[in-house]
């Protein structure tokens, strides 16, 4: 399969009064054509910074890409200037933001906001752009697009604004769509509609999607592959089945166990992850998750765990996969999920470098 995006050992830090915050600490992943990669993690895990860095939308300074490469269609985006990025943003890569209330321009008609990208990137006339804007609004399921195109964002409901945002993002048929918590601000019924819409459009347009969320239900619904981020690093990545039915990292276990399932009758306590995420001004030595991890080994406090490969597509960054590690049992809530994966290697393999 064709690779659209390849991120190699990306590092991003922010200069603040309190010191340098290492928001992203060596993230590597790739994305194929037409694929959806979900990135999950709690706030502060660096998932939004990673995605904004892909479009170079982080403010620089105080932000800085301190290392790594972002290969988009084989071209590295890191050294590109703002001017060069302009021809990529909105055209090749576009983004859907979390809050449709604040990310649309309240003083501009919705139609004009969609046309803006078209006129800039595709050099079409105003009249043609408007026609296309109406088509796009129709595509994202807005009724009466001919009159809606002349309305302002405040005349749209929350779900419709999010649809309008998707129309803007899709205007120039980008190869990569980054959706940063696109449904978090919406009700479940509207969320379900938007997710269906995004999947439908992906089938039609063959776009690759990076989907950032902290809702594991949404992940199970949309993702082909899942990357779990913690403290600025990807701690586990694999296909959606591998992450949900054969998770290897204790943090992934914790996330899965802390969600009540609908079968859970409420008698047993939820397995909460104790404590809070670490301060990334001074990332802890060793495994950043160790202080909150009841499975932590002595080595976790001394040396950062390397990536281990469990199958062709499944990687996890934990010492527990080391041949010398003791055998541990995941929490009960996770054990119920676990299935045998036929694609797994006989033994986890240590990954030397990069991924």
């Amino acid at each position, binding site marked *: 399969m064709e690779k659209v995006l390849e991120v190699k050992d990306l590092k991003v830090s922010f200069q603040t009064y309190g010191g340098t915050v290492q928001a992203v600490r060596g993230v590597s992943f790739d994305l194929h054509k037409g694929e959806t990669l979900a990135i999950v993690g709690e706030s502060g895990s660096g998932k939004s910074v990673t995605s904004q860095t892909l479009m170079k939308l982080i403010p620089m300074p105080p932000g800085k890409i301190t290392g790594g490469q972002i290969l988009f269609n084989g071209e590295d985006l890191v050294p590109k200037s703002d001017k060069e990025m302009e021809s990529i943003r909105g055209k090749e890569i576009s983004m859907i933001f979390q809050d449709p209330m604040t990310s649309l321009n309240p003083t501009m008609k919705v139609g004009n906001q969609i046309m803006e990208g078209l006129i800039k990137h595709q050099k079409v006339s105003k009249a043609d752009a408007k026609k296309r804007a109406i088509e796009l609004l129709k595509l994202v399921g807005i009724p009466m697009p001919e009159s809606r195109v002349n309305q302002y964002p405040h005349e749209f409901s*929350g779900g419709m604004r999010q649809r309008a945002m998707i129309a803007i993002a899709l205007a120039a048929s980008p190869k990569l769509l980054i959706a940063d918590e696109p449904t978090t601000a919406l009700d479940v019924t509207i969320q379900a509609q938007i997710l269906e819409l995004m999947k439908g459009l992906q089938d039609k347009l063959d776009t690759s999607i990076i989907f950032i969320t902290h809702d594991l239900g949404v992940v199970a619904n949309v993702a082909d592959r899942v990357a779990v981020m913690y403290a600025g690093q990807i701690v586990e990545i694999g296909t959606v089945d591998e992450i949900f039915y054969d998770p290897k990292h204790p943090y992934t276990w*914790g996330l899965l166990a802390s*969600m009540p*399932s609908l079968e859970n009758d409420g008698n047993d306590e*939820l397995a*909460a992850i*104790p404590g*809070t995420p670490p301060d990334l001004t001074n990332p802890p030595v060793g495994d950043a998750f160790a202080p909150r991890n009841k499975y932590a080994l002595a080595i976790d406090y001394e040396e950062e765990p390397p990536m281990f490969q469990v199958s062709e597509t499944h990687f996890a960054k934990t010492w527990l996969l080391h041949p010398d590690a003791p055998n541990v049992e995941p929490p009960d809530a996770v054990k119920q999920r676990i299935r045998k994966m036929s694609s797994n290697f006989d033994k986890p393999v240590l990954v030397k470098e990069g991924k």
Partner: protein
Amino acid sequence: MAEKLLEIKNLKQHFNVGRPNMVKAVDGISFDIYKGETLGLVGESGCGKSTTGRTIIRLYDATDGQVIFDGENVHGKKSAKALKAFNRKMQMIFQDPYASLNPRMTVADIIAEGIDIHGLAKTKKARMERVYELLETVGLNKEHANRYPHEFSGGQRQRIGIARALAVDPDFIIADEPISALDVSIQAQVVNLMKKLQREKGLTYLFIAHDLSMVKYISDRIGVMYFGKLVELAPADDLYNNPIHPYTQSLLSAIPLPDPESERTRQRRAYDPASHQYADNESLEMREITPGHFVYCSEKEFKEYQQQYTK
């Protein structure tokens, strides 16, 4: 059955009454809350669930209807003293832990505000001891007492909010989306804490939320609201296994589950209010389909639902 702590009878809360932009946020709902239970209230934004909570605690004056708490009408005329005594028994935990704590007060003062108002501590020392005790109850420690809210994370702030609610020893707590603003791993911590406090202190909760899986987990019974009306009220398991009202069915079919296999085959059902085809003269009310399971329906639907249920 346990004794009733709270009876809500035909409660209405309308805004902008008499003007063209009148909103019937809560439009005639009735339910009871029993001592020691957790009643979950779910629905989409704008369905009136938060307004219901706020009207029950008298943050709004009800347009019509009664809220009877421990045999007394909350919205009746009260002397200042009676009102104060009532305020002590009912407390609220708010959704946004960032906006609901005064940034210029220390944690100790925030928690002790209720203690001061109600004169629950005789001496300064007793007051601080109570604050320390409360901090410990919610999983924070003594050193946190002299800090300000901005020094805490979202989960910790929500714990402060809970400590503040507990400070006056209430019987009943209204939690308005207490975990919606928190991360998944922190949500579980707060929910576990709330359950533990309920066991230890025999608290009664009204838990308002839109995250249905968490509501199912924490609630004994669940009420579903739609456009200012309660459309279904049932024990938590019963509601999930046998949703009867089409809106409840649609809502349940929309929750994504953390299970890729069931997600691949998910069938979402849309709700169309017109599908009921109510005639003008039909009387709509809550009817009991099976013991404890109420649905808002017409006489005709009631018979259909009952038949479906027995199958």
